[in-house]
């Protein structure tokens, strides 16, 4: 018997590519996310994100909980915009039950959402500066965020995971100090926000590291479904607050912030602009706040009519969609979250191709990823 043995070489790393893992324990991902990087020298060839390290099965857990109990699970997805997540589910349930909530509850919801947007952008600014090597920004961002957290703590009882907005309105009325404290915060932060520009936005090291890096074009932003400040930085007009106003956004003037460059710097500046815009929205809403009525009359057990419902809200990171299928039971038959971070994450490969490995942190930081929201 004769045979022929062919020698075959299997190349795992082709064309001198060097594969390394960034994460799951990497300080710049702000959570447990692993990037599989393929490098050629110092240039990034390919980025493959591996998610699922903090998967808790929130969507499945929702199927075993009542609608009021689900609220505390939505907090734990995108913890920096907990109010918006609570609001999304509450709006979806109210849409299904065809309940109109009091005007005061609507306005308070919107104020809280805008405050948490500012707080989220402050934390992002603090951490982004730190990722880029400027530790000072971390302390300045955290200092200003403390005032927002105090407002939340006084009214909701907790600083991060509030569970305050519930189907039908709010858990309880706001604290009497709520309005004076917000007014105090706005006058304080109006003076402090220009400091952010002086510290980081104009810094020559920062601008050279961020301008022209990680370009996302208008078409790519739409194709990948990149929403929120990351999408608007590429000129994609995707603000749900303007296109489908919910809560009290139709009562006030909201200017959509848009920038067309699509690089790290434009995404950075857009978030600074959004903080100014959020302060303008809160100032308008404070004037409109009626005297009483924080919750609508609700049945003790919520049973949604059979059918499917969809509700979108704008969180600090983009568009959060909630798709709810009900079969007239106490808990949903299926609940799907369209989380903004999941879509935003998958442009990482596109953005970092051809850039140096040192730019990778700047790019992933500019997308403002919150990992628990990706994995859910």
């Amino acid at each position: 018997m004769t045979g022929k043995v062919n020698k075959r070489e299997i190349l795992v790393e082709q064309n001198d590519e060097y594969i390394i893992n960034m994460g799951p324990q990497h300080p710049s991902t702000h959570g447990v996310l692993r990037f599989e990087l393929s490098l050629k020298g110092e240039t990034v060839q390919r980025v493959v994100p591996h998610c699922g390290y903090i998967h808790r099965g929130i969507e499945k857990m929702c199927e075993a909980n009542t609608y009021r109990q689900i609220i505390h699970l939505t907090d734990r997805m995108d913890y920096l915009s907990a109010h918006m997540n609570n609001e999304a589910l509450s709006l979806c349930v109210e849409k299904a039950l065809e309940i109109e909530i009091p005007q005061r509850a609507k306005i308070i919801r919107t104020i809280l959402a805008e405050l948490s947007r500012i707080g989220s952008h402050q934390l992002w600014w603090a951490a982004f500066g730190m990722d880029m090597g400027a530790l000072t920004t971390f302390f300045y961002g955290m200092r200003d965020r403390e005032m927002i957290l105090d407002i939340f703590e006084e009214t909701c009882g907790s600083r991060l995971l509030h569970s305050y907005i519930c189907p039908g309105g709010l858990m309880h009325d706001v604290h009497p100090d709520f309005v004076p404290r917000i007014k105090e915060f706005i006058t304080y932060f109006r003076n402090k926000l220009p400091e952010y520009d002086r510290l980081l936005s104009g810094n020559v090291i920062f601008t050279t590291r961020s301008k022209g890096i990680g370009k996302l074009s208008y078409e790519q932003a739409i194709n990948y479904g990149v929403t929120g400040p990351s999408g608007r930085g590429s000129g994609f007009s995707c603000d749900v607050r303007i296109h489908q106003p919910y809560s009290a956004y139709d009562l006030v003037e909201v200017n959509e912030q848009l920038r067309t460059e699509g690089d790290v710097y434009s995404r950075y500046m857009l978030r600074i602009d959004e903080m100014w815009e959020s302060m303008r929205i809160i100032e308008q809403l404070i004037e409109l706040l009626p005297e009483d009525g924080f919750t609508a009359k609700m049945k003790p057990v919520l049973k949604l009519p059979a059918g499917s419902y969809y509700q979108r809200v704008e969180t600090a990171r983009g568009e959060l969609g909630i798709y709810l299928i009900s079969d007239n039971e106490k808990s949903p038959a299926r609940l799907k979250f369209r989380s903004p971070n999941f879509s935003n994450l998958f442009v990482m490969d596109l953005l970092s191709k051809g850039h140096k490995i040192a730019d990778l942190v700047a790019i992933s930081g500019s997308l403002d990823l919150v990992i628990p929201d990706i994995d859910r």
Partner: protein
Amino acid sequence: MNGLLNYLKEIGAGIKTLLTGMRVTSGYFFSPKEIVTQKYPENRDTLKMFDRFKGELEMPHTAENTHTCTGCGICENVCPNGSIQILTHKKENEEGKLVKQLHTHIYHLSMCTFCGLCVKNCPSDAIVFNQSFEHAVFDRQKLTKVLNKPGSILKKEAKGL
């Protein structure tokens, strides 16, 4: 010559932005009134949490060792994580009738997510959140607590006696 000029200009611009940032930080460095840091373990005595702060579940008792919990079990049902267990027993009241009464109200602090549904839904306002926040213990058994004090009874009944 032009290249050198540009090079020097860039250095000048770099130093200028550096100084702009340094002016902010040095401004704070020389004004100690602006310091916002709290010295946490030292200021324990003066540190006061907000009234609504969700610390730890507590059952308020009066001086006569009475509470208002009827043992209805709504908080147990409404809790999303099963951190509350209510054990009841049948006991005679002053009219000689057998009535369901609270025996032990068990609270698992380790499972609690502080959503506040139990406090909100309690029909007799028997449980509240207190302001404690230092929950760390060396033995996890200590995180399971019994909220009603030994020998305590329902408030209404206590009035009758």
